[in-house]
């Protein structure tokens, strides 16, 4: 009888089976065979058999490796250690088979033969190896041509990630691959050396469709957009009119009601368009984003610990994204400096902003407040006023006389 009767059940059905994958790796790798048996045990016990890892790292890097140990090392010696290594994927996840094969060869030698293609953050994840293999593995990767480097983990900049953007999408409002790559390159130090209050993620989507889920998954989400009018090709609109009900499927679904269709011409009141993309998505041949392109940056998206899950909110309403992206870099530098100084241990940047008030970060970064940043203005009158905003009245003088320091005073 099979040693893994429960897992075998998961080889049935049309969806490709991860069990089969582990078995395939098991053809050459002991670790994969032990992993399968251990996993069967978890299926029986209905719990994990992995323990916290201590700090395992490679020379010169603080992150990128997740230490992992089995709690039954005697029974499953080949997975007694089972550290994962996060490899910084090539931007937008394009590969040459040459590079891929080379990595596979290294992984066959240095690890379990099992991968996660890709991790949720975007890394190419090598799943499970022993401590002593880590440094050689890294060194092997560094010797490839082109070389592959390690990604982020811990309280550092996490591996940035981008949608396919201009590489194969007609809607990219900026060069997602280049911005993502250039930020990754610029910030190798914080990426590889956890030294912040907590993790920080950057993701780049070329338009509000947000195919890399940046709005939900990155502290700093760079979302392509435009400021001028949607481009319309009325002839193509007419073509679409033959195959869809433009009124019902486009005009009526526009969130602001700023479109109209008279049966032959589609009009858009662009001042009231919120660039939601729906109409463009529906008629790719006929409509396109305008020419004055750039991005909106949303800040603060994260998972629920501790202050609750968030989708990012508008932080920079519009940035022109032109090489070498100095505005972006300056913003990131200043933001990180502030967070590093003010953030508590394990406080994401969005949580710090909540604690301090948006006003605080706007001031530090010298960003103009704007109604784009709010879904609505505050519903309470509990505002702070700095000393500089007050009239220098007798009352204020009396406070000063008593040595009371007002807000915003040096």
């Amino acid at each position, binding site marked *: 009888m099979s040693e893994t009767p429960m897992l075998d059940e*998961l080889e049935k059905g049309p969806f490709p089976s991860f069990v089969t994958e582990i078995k395939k790796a098991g053809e050459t790798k002991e670790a994969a065979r032990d992993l399968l048996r251990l996993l069967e045990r978890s299926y029986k016990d209905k719990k994990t058999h992995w323990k916290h890892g201590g700090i395992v790292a490679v020379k010169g890097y603080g992150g990128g490796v997740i230490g992992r140990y089995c709690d039954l090392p005697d029974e499953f010696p080949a997975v007694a250690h089972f550290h994962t290594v996060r490899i910084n994927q090539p931007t937008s996840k394009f590969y040459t088979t040459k590079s891929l094969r080379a990595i596979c060869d290294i992984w066959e030698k240095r690890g379990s033969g099992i991968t996660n293609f890709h991790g949720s953050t975007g890394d190419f994840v090598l799943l499970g190896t022993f401590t002593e293999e880590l440094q050689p593995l890294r060194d092997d990767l560094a010797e490839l041509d082109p070389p592959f480097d390690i990604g982020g983990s811990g309280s550092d900049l996490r591996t940035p990630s981008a949608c396919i953007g201009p590489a194969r999408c007609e809607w990219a409002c900026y060069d997602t691959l280049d911005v993502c790559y250039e930020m990754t390159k610029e910030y190798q130090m914080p990426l590889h050396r956890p030294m912040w209050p907590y993790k920080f993620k950057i993701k780049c989507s070329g338009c509000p469709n947000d195919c*890399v889920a940046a709005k939900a998954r990155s502290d700093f989400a760079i979302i392509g957009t435009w400021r001028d009018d949607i481009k319309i090709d009325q002839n193509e609109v007419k073509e679409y009119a033959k195959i869809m009900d433009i009124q019902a499927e486009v005009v009526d679904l526009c969130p602001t009601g700023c479109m109209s269709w008279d049966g032959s011409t589609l009009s858009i009141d662009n001042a009231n368009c919120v660039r939601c993309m729906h109409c463009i998505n529906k008629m790719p041949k006929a409509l396109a984003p305008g020419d004055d392109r750039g991005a909106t940056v949303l800040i603060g998206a994260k998972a629920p610990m501790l202050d609750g899950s968030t989708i990012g909110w508008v932080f920079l309403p519009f940035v022109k994204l032109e090489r070498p992206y100095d505005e972006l870099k300056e913003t990131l530098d200043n933001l990180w400096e502030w967070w590093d100084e003010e953030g508590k241990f394990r406080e994401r940047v969005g949580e710090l902003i909540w604690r301090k008030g948006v006003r605080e970060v706007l001031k530090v970064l010298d960003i103009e407040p704007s109604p784009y940043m709010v879904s609505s203005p505050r519903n309470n009158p509990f505002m702070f006023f700095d000393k500089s905003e007050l009239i220098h009245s007798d009352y204020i003088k009396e406070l000063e006389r008593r040595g009371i320091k007002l807000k915003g005073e040096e």
Partner: protein
Amino acid sequence: MVDWEERQKEYWDFIAKRREKDYFSDFGPPHYSLMLPPVVKDNYGKWKYHEVVKCGVLKHVSESGDVVYSIRAVTPRLLSIQTIRDFCDIADKYCDGYIRWTTRNNVEFLVTDESKIDPLINDLKAMKPAYPVGGTHDAVTGKYALSNIVHTQGWVHCHTPAIDASGIVKAVMDELFEYFEEMKLPALCRISLACCANMCGAVHASDIAIVGIHRAPPLIDDDGVRRMCELPSTVASCPNAAIKMKPKEKTVEVDSEKCMFCGNCYTMCPGMPMFDPENDGTAIMVAGKISAARSDPALSKVVVPWIPNEPPRWPKVVDAVKKILEAWASDAKKHERIAEWVERIGWEKFFEKTGLEFTQHLINDYNRTPYIYAQLRASTNFRW
């Protein structure tokens, strides 16, 4: 036009600088231009429109008239190097040695020659296991297939999961396979899974989300705490201030009245395990959304508080997901995602139509999140 030579020169200069150091490090990922197929480089930023040839096959047309077809196959994400090599073989055979992965763990093969599509698909099907093609959508016709389930490590690798990841994904996808193969859903529907409340699968903004939850407070291993944990940060890790220091004993205790089983303490401190095979399980969330299309992005909401772990195929979870998906699919209008459907019909009707039970657990009582969040604009949908 992008000056590829210039960009690659910058890259190699950078690498050369790094190599000057004693220890060659911090050189980052390969420059993307080294990985792009020629048709992509030639038409970079010049794509004009796309069409969906059939489920799993996209056609992108450039301003130059160039065309690229993308064939998308689903994967379980966890891949052996053998399978990766098999994919490479196919890419070598049809795609000049280029291949890519999508943001939802699907693999894409780009070809310029239409006649290669079917043979390529057949080669994928011939793999062991077979790698089926599908999961795309076509907004033009308003037909949507179900894509892959974004998910996490589960019992395969993580130390905090309340559920497995890959196993549930497999079971759910098998059951919903018809929706992957055929574009027959009324709108986009993204399913995701995270094996604990850390939500590495970012389930907090998905149309349907499966999330592992614990239901019992940590069972403190005093020795472990003493050995491995920093007490103040362990205490601080609890969102509900349920952990108290026992300074004399150099350990901590939990006020189990206040514990809501989030597991954050265990993430911080290995001395606070909380694995109860019988009481761990799955919660289901719905109506999250990320794109800005039509409506604002939205967080997912819990609609099933708990389903027990039933390996290997988690039938109750599969059933709940299917029930939600099909109740929605049969009732929604074209392009109306779950969030938009619920917005139209109301939550009371959601529970009526899905047959799910509304319990007290579903009423939010987590008061750490400040209301100010509701007044910040979590959307790019604004007018200039």
